[in-house]
């Protein structure tokens, strides 16, 4: 996808997030994963680290050597996406206590990723 399409998808998801509440922790976390991944691709495409034909789907599914390259350029960004992904088995697919604060953490991470992306336009 082009950087512009990633940006548009991320913004749409962020807009829809305003309709969710504390009881929707699963989809808050999933939205952070979805929008956050779009922001990662936007940033990697804009900075020339990857092309529109090389979209990342999940950090956890990315080739180790490729993820290492992305981390060299954007270490905080990759850490933020990985932290969101780690919440998914526990609170989206699992029933661990603490879903509400976990979702808030995911949204904070997404906000930081969005802020980095908006520096690039």
């Amino acid at each position: 996808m082009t950087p512009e399409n990633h940006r548009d998808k991320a913004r749409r998801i962020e807009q829809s997030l305003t309709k969710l509440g504390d009881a929707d922790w699963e989809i808050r976390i999933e939205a952070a994963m979805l929008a956050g991944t779009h922001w990662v691709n936007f940033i990697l495409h804009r900075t020339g680290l990857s092309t529109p034909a090389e979209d990342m789907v999940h950090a956890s599914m990315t080739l180790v050597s490729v993820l290492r390259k992305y981390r060299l350029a954007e270490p905080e960004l990759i850490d933020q996406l990985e932290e969101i992904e780690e919440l998914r088995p526990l609170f989206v697919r699992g029933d661990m206590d603490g879903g509400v604060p976990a979702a808030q953490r995911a949204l904070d991470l997404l906000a930081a990723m969005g802020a980095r992306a908006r520096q690039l336009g």
Partner: protein
Amino acid sequence: MKIASHADKIRRLLQLRERLDPLQDFELWYWSSLTAGTNIWNASLHACGLTSEDRAFSTIPGVHVVPQADGGWRRELRGPGDVSHVGWPQIPGDMPAPIQRLEAALHALEEHRDPCLRADRVPTPAIVAECERALSQAIAVYQALVPMEQQP
């Protein structure tokens, strides 16, 4: 994961869908549907005795996150239990007809995941209708297979 926990998620996810506009909020409307569908799949397989109801949370096929007595968790290699998506992995054994119908409905729902969420396909009323139809079929199987007392 226990059927009761799947049922709690299904109930809340279906309520969330009602608060989202299927086109304006397509991404999260769809993802709520997809997540409800996967919980329906897992709960229905547990109810039929085809997969374990153990409190082990899905990641990639064969690897589960398992809560520990000290409040922590660890990854473990495990056999058939919860899955993260229908067909990932395939469940071994003979599938009863309702489970086969459920599987087909969820695959129909999954078809729109990457094109609409991770590519450039623009959601349309027709796509929304297909998703609605697929999830309705899935809910009907779930309600037939999972006892009411386990659907809070």
